[in-house]
Every structure is written in structure tokens, then in C-alpha cells.
């Protein structure tokens, strides 16, 4: 009984994960500029990979601790690295898409300008 329930749960989790991974890939193709693509590539694939790995851990006997550890580490590092990439590219002078309403970073007058250039 427990095995059947775990199997269904794992299958549902893997299906959710695959759906969100597909959304991430679609977002990378469809969205206009770097920041939006980074958003799609991080947010969707984080949930996708986490739920896929936990689903695999439920399906296969004895893999649950490893897959939970993997999920925790991914949950911790993936947003940090994407934040670092976005911040570095903003400081290097990548302009956001013109439809981005209002540019909060420029509004708050953060001192990001001219960091990448020699004075």
C-alpha cells in the first residue's frame, strides 16, 4: 500500500518538475532581455529540479536522503548565483528591456554606474 502511494506521489512530483522545466526553457526562448531570461531560467528550473529530484528519491528505494540533500543545496545556491550574475551584468552596463517599468535600481540612485570602466 505504502509503495503504491509513494509511487504515485513520486510520479506526480516528477510531472510537476518536468512541467516547470519546460516553462523555464520556453521562457528562455520567448523573453526579451537578459534579466527576464535569468528570472525564467532560475525560478522555474529551481522548482523543477527540486521536485524532480525529490520525486526520484520517493520512487527509488534508499535514494531519499541523497535527493533531499541535493534539493536543499540547489535551493540554497541557485538563487544566489543567479543574483550574482544579474548584479554583475547590471553593473557592467547591460541595459534592461525598454518595457521594464520603472527601473527601480536607477530610481533609488544606487551607485552602480561606471564601475566597469577606467577613470
Amino acid at each position, binding site marked *: 500500500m505504502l509503495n503504491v502511494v509513494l509511487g504515485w506521489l513520486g510520479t506526480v512530483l516528477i510531472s510537476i518538475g518536468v512541467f516547470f522545466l519546460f516553462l523555464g526553457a520556453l521562457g528562455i526562448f520567448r523573453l526579451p532581455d537578459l534579466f527576464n531570461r535569468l528570472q525564467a531560467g532560475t525560478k522555474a528550473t529551481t522548482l523543477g529540479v527540486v521536485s524532480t529530484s525529490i520525486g526520484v528519491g520517493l520512487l527509488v528505494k534508499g535514494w531519499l536522503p541523497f535527493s533531499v540533500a541535493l534539493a536543499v543545496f540547489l535551493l540554497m545556491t541557485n538563487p544566489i548565483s543567479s543574483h*550574482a550574475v544579474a*548584479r554583475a551584468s547590471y553593473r557592467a552596463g547591460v541595459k534592461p528591456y525598454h518595457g521594464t517599468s520603472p527601473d527601480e535600481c536607477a530610481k533609488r540612485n544606487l551607485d552602480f554606474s561606471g564601475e566597469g570602466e577606467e577613470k
Partner: protein
Amino acid sequence: MKNDTPKVFKSIFALFVVAIFMIGLFYAFVSMPKGWGVNVNNRVSRLYILKNVRTATRLLDSGKFFAKGMKPLRAEVPYKPIKFKKTANLEDGAANVVTSIVVDYRGFDTLGEVTVLFLAASGVMMLLFGKRVKPKRKKTEPSLIMYVGTRIAFAVIFLFGIYIFVHGHLTPGGGFPGGAVIASGILGLFLGRNGYTPNHAGLKVFESLSGIAFVIIGLIGLFSVKSFLANFLPTGIIGNLYSAGFISLIYIAIGMKVGSELAAVVDSMIGDTKEEWS
């Protein structure tokens, strides 16, 4: 060639040289014994390959296992069929054959390679020592997310590196990748903080102590078993953590040494620029 040689001529000449080189490499690869042709028995001890082979005894009796000109092993060592995680090992106790080649069969070679790495690291330190560039640009604080996140991630990465080199004789890994993982964690600390410097004296002491530990383990083997870097500890059951004799001890020393050396290389590369890295 003179400096005013046209670029096209130069690249055509380079393509010619590259083509000759690639044809030679193809020929060398084709004429080399490959895969099944190589007799691994000549490279690794025969006991190693026979671990947990059910048909081993029959083959040993019939003498089919060995290449021509080799004596059957029975005459030298009393041989029993070995089961994984059940019996103590005849040879070494290590489940990972690559590890036992690196540390046991070619231990002296590994000592030399660690010495080469030490020389390279100290060369980098000597070349870049003492240069202090004044900060031209105004500093901005690295973001809070990077600061907190790298601190938490550093703990996990450090633990993972230690796991890799402690379990080097059981799972893939060992001292060299473990040290590299630890050094990349320290690189993450550099990126996350503004003006982070590790404790230089601590790094140097760590590196020297682990190097000395390697040699001392070798000397213990010399005085107790009469050969440098010989195994002097009991070999446990294959597959257990406390097995494989002195392999895990030496791998811990190598992991500490490689980690502190690569961290020192990264530090001497970054340290004197005085810029922010977030």
C-alpha cells in the same frame, strides 16, 4: 620568421604543422594496444583484480588467468575467494583501485607531484609578493545576499571536500579533488566579502604540517616494514570506512596540503588588487 610576415602565410604554415601533428597522433593511436589488448595484470597486483570473483579459484587452479610466463599465484600466497564487505582483504583493503595506485603502488611518485605543486605555489607567491596597488575606484559593499549565502555555502562545500578525501578509498574522489573543492569554497568567500583575507600564517602552518605528515608516514613505513611508504596498519574489511591501512591517512594529508596550497595561490592572485569582487 620576421615580424612583418603576412598573417595569412603564418596561419597557413600553422595549419600545415597542425595537420602533420594530427596525422602523427592518429597513427600513434591506431598502432597502440587498446582496451582488451592491454594486460592489466602487469600493472596492478593480480590479487586486486580477483576480488569478489566467484570463478577465481577455478581459474587459479587451471592457470588460465595469467599471461604467459607468470607463475600461478597459489604457490606464493594462500588464496581464498573474497566477497565484498564480508572478508578481510589480502592485498590492501581499498575498494577504489585508482586510489590504491596513486597512494600505494606509486606513493613516491605522488610525493614528487605534491612537491611540484608546492614549488609552483611558492613560485606564484614569490612573483606576486609585496605588490600593493592602491584602490583607484571607490568601494561598494557587496550585496547582503552574496555575503550571507557564501558563508552558508562555504560550510557545506567545506564539509563536502572533507567527505571526498576521507572516503577516498571507497568512493570516487580522493585528496586531489577534495582539496580543489575546499579551495573553490575559499574562492567563494573571496567573491562574497569585501577585502576578505584568510589567515596567512594558518595556511602556511597547515600546508607545512600536512607535507611533514606525508613524509613521517613514509618514514614510519621505512622503520617498521623496511620500505619507504609501506603499509604498516592492518587492512580491514573491504568496503568499511576503517580499511585500506594507511591510504586514508595519506589522503587526508594530501587533501589538506592541496587545499591550502590552491587557496594560497588564489589568495596571492587576488590579494593585492584591492578591488571589490561581488
